[in-house]
C-alpha cells in the first residue's frame, strides 16, 4: 500500500533537509536593527555570503515614518544602525530596500509584493513575525542574529524539526469579522503557547475563502500563538497574486514552478501531531483587554475574571493593574487616547480600505490625542493615495505616514504616553510595547477606525 501523502509542512521539510538537523535556506531577509551586526561579524570572520542574490536587506524597524524622512531617527543612536547596515549590505553586494527606495516597506509586506517569497521556498529573517510569509505556502520562520549569519554564510540552518499542527476552520467568517478576529479567537481559546514548537497549517473553507492579505494577517498572528511558523497551502488565489511580481519566475520557468506549486498541499490522510477545529461562525469581532494577545475577548464582552480567563490570579491581577481595568467592566465604551493602524499584521491596502470606509466623512473624537496610519509599504502608500485614502484618513484626523514598523513597538524614539489607552491594529499588547506604561488594546483596523471616531472602544456597527 502506498504511504499516505504527507502534510504540506512535511513535504517542505523533506525537500530542504540536507541531513537531519541541517536544512537548506532559499531566501534570507535582514533588517537594520540587527543587519549590521550580522554582516560585520561575517566580514570579521573572513566569510562571504554564499548567494548574495538570495539575501535582501530592508530598512523598516527603526526608520522614521514622518514625511520627508532621512537617515535620521527618533530613536537615539538609531541612525548608525541604518548607515552601518547599508554600508555592510552594499559591501556584500546584497539588494537593499533603503529608506527612500520606492520599494521600501515592512519586510513581510514587501517580500510578497516583490515576489521574494514564493510557494515551496524556505525563508528566514531575524524577525519573529516572519511566519507571515507562510501565507504563500513557503516555510518561513524567525531566527536570531547568529542564525542569520549562518544562513548567509552556508545557505543552510542547523534547526530541529518542529511538529506539524493543523487548524481547520470550517464555515465562513460572518460579516464584519476579519482574519485578525479569527486569530485572536484562536489564541484566546487555546492560549499564547497553543502552537508552541509547531508549524501550523491553516486550512478549511474559511481560510481558502480569504484573499492573500487576509491569509497574511492570519499567519502573522500565529507568532502570538507560539508557533514556529504558519502555512496556508498555495492555490489559484496565491498564484494569481504572484504572477508578474518582480522576483517571481517568468515564462516557461513560471509554468514549471506552477506545476510544482500545485502539488504543495497536505494529503487527505496526512498525519499531524496536533489538530484543532474552529467553527468560523462562532468567531466575533475581538479586542484584547490585557497584556498578552491571549487576553482577548469578543468586543461585546466584559473584562473577564481570572477564572473566566483561565489565568492564575496573580497574572490576571498584574495585567488588570497595568491596563487600569477591573473584572466585569465592558470593553466597549472605554475612553481611548490614541489609535494606530499599521504593522506587518494589518497595514496592507485592503486593511486601509476597510478602515477608510469607516472613517469617510467622519472626524476622530477630540479626546483622541494621537492617531496614526502607517502604510505597510511605499507601494501600499502609493496605491492608497491613488484611491484617495490618504485624504480620507487626513480629513478624519489621522496622520498619514511613510511606511515602516513605526509604533508597533517602542524603539526608544516615538511613543504613546504612559497610562494612555491605545487601540491598535498591531500584534502585541505587551506591557510598554508602544511606549513606557502605554496601555495597548489590539483589534482589527475596522475596530481601530470606529473607536477613533467614537473616542471609546467601539464597533463599526454602533457608529451613528
Amino acid at each position, binding site marked *: 500500500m502506498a504511504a499516505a501523502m504527507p502534510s504540506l509542512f512535511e513535504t517542505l521539510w523533506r525537500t530542504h533537509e540536507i541531513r537531519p538537523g*541541517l536544512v*537548506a535556506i532559499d531566501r534570507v531577509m535582514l533588517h537594520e536593527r540587527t543587519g549590521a551586526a550580522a554582516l*560585520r561579524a561575517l566580514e570579521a570572520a573572513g*566569510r562571504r555570503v554564499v548567494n*548574495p542574490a538570495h539575501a535582501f536587506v530592508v530598512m523598516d524597524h527603526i526608520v522614521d515614518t514622518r514625511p520627508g524622512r532621512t537617515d535620521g531617527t527618533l530613536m537615539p543612536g538609531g541612525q548608525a544602525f541604518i548607515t552601518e547596515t547599508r554600508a555592510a549590505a552594499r559591501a556584500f553586494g546584497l539588494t537593499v530596500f533603503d529608506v527612500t527606495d520606492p520599494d521600501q516597506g515592512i519586510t513581510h509586506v514587501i517580500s510578497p509584493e516583490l515576489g521574494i517569497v514564493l510557494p515551496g521556498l524556505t525563508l528566514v529573517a531575524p524577525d519573529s513575525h516572519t511566519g507571515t510569509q507562510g501565507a504563500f505556502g513557503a516555510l518561513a520562520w524567525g531566527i536570531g542574529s*547568529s542564525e542569520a549569519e*549562518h544562513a548567509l554564510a*552556508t*545557505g543552510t540552518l542547523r534547526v530541529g524539526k518542529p511538529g506539524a499542527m493543523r487548524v481547520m476552520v470550517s464555515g465562513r467568517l460572518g460579516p464584519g469579522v476579519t482574519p485578525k478576529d479569527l486569530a485572536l479567537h484562536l489564541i484566546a481559546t487555546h492560549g499564547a503557547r497553543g502552537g508552541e514548537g509547531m508549524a501550523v497549517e491553516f486550512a478549511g473553507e474559511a481560510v481558502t475563502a480569504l484573499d492573500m492579505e487576509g491569509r497574511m494577517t492570519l499567519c502573522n498572528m500565529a507568532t502570538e500563538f507560539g508557533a514556529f511558523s504558519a502555512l496556508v497551502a498555495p492555490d489559484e488565489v496565491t498564484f494569481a497574486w504572484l504572477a508578474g511580481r518582480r522576483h517571481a519566475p517568468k515564462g516557461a520557468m513560471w509554468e514549471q*514552478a506552477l506545476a510544482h506549486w500545485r502539488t504543495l498541499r497536505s494529503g487527505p490522510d496526512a498525519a499531524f501531531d496536533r489538530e484543532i477545529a474552529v467553527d468560523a461562525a462562532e468567531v466575533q469581532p475581538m479586542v484584547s483587554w490585557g497584556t498578552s494577545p491571549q487576553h482577548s475577548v469578543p468586543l461585546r464582552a466584559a473584562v473577564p475574571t481570572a477564572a473566566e480567563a483561565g489565568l492564575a490570579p496573580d497574572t490576571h491581577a498584574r495585567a488588570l493593574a497595568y491596563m487600569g481595568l477591573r473584572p466585569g467592566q465592558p470593553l466597549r465604551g472605554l475612553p481611548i487616547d490614541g489609535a494606530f493602524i499599521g504593522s506587518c499584521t494589518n497595514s496592507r491596502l485592503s486593511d486601509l480600505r476597510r478602515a477608510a470606509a469607516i472613517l469617510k466623512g467622519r472626524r476622530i473624537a477630540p479626546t483622541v490625542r494621537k492617531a496614526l496610519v502607517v502604510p505597510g509599504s511605499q507601494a501600499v502608500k502609493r496605491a492608497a493615495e491613488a484611491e484617495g485614502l490618504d485624504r480620507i484618513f487626513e480629513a478624519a484626523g489621522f496622520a498619514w505616514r511613510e511606511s515602516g514598523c513605526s509604533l508597533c513597538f517602542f524603539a526608544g524614539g516615538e511613543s504613546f504616553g504612559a497610562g494612555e489607552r491605545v487601540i491598535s491594529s498591531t500584534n502585541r499588547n505587551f506591557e510598554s510595547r508602544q511606549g513606557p506604561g502605554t496601555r495597548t488594546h489590539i483589534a482589527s483596523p475596522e475596530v481601530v477606525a470606529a473607536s477613533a471616531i467614537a473616542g471609546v472602544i467601539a464597533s463599526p456597527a454602533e457608529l451613528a
Partner: protein
Amino acid sequence: MPEPLVRLTAPALPFWADNIDTDIIIPSREMKGTGKTGLAAGLFANRRYRNPETREEDPDFPLNQPAYRAARIWLAGANVGCGSSREHAAWALAEQGFRAVIAPSFNPIFFGNCVRNGIVPVVLARELVEGLGSPVTVDLEAMTVTGADGRAHPFGLPAEARTMLMEGLDPIALTLKDGDAIAAWQQADRAARPWAWLA
C-alpha cells in the same frame, strides 16, 4: 571565531547567586553599538560599578579584587543566563576574556550562546561549584574540572559542543565541514527547482 580550547587554568570569579539573568550580565543600556564588541566594560555593570555612568568600581565586587581581575572562569549559581535571549551576554563575557562558566544549571539559550562564542558551559553540583576555589582548571580532553584543592570532577557536554569548543569552531565552521553534502543538495535542487534560484 573563538580560539580552540583544550585545557585552561585560570582565576575563577565567585559570583554565584541563583538566577543571574542576562540583564545582570549586561544591562540593556550597555548595548550601545550595532556590533558584538565594545561590550566588556558593560559586563556586570550594575554590580561591578558603584556608579555605572562614571564607571566608579565597587571594591566589594569580586571582579574588582586583585585575585579575580584576570578571571577567565566564572563560578555561577543555578539557572544562569535566564531572562532575555540577548547574545550580548555571551559576547560581553567572551570579550572580557571568559572561557568557561561553571554552574549548577544553565538557561538553555544562554548555554547555546556560550558554546557558539567559545565559552565552555560546565554543569556541576552546587556544593562542588562552591568548593572549587581559585584557580580552576577546565580540561575538555579529560572532561574534568579541577579545583584549587587538586580534586578533579567529571562533567558532560554534548559531543558537537565539545568538538566546537576544542577545535575553535562556531556553528558556521562546523556546518562548512558539511560543504560536500550541501553542494550536492544544491546541485540536485537546481535541477529539480530551477525556479527557486535567482542566481
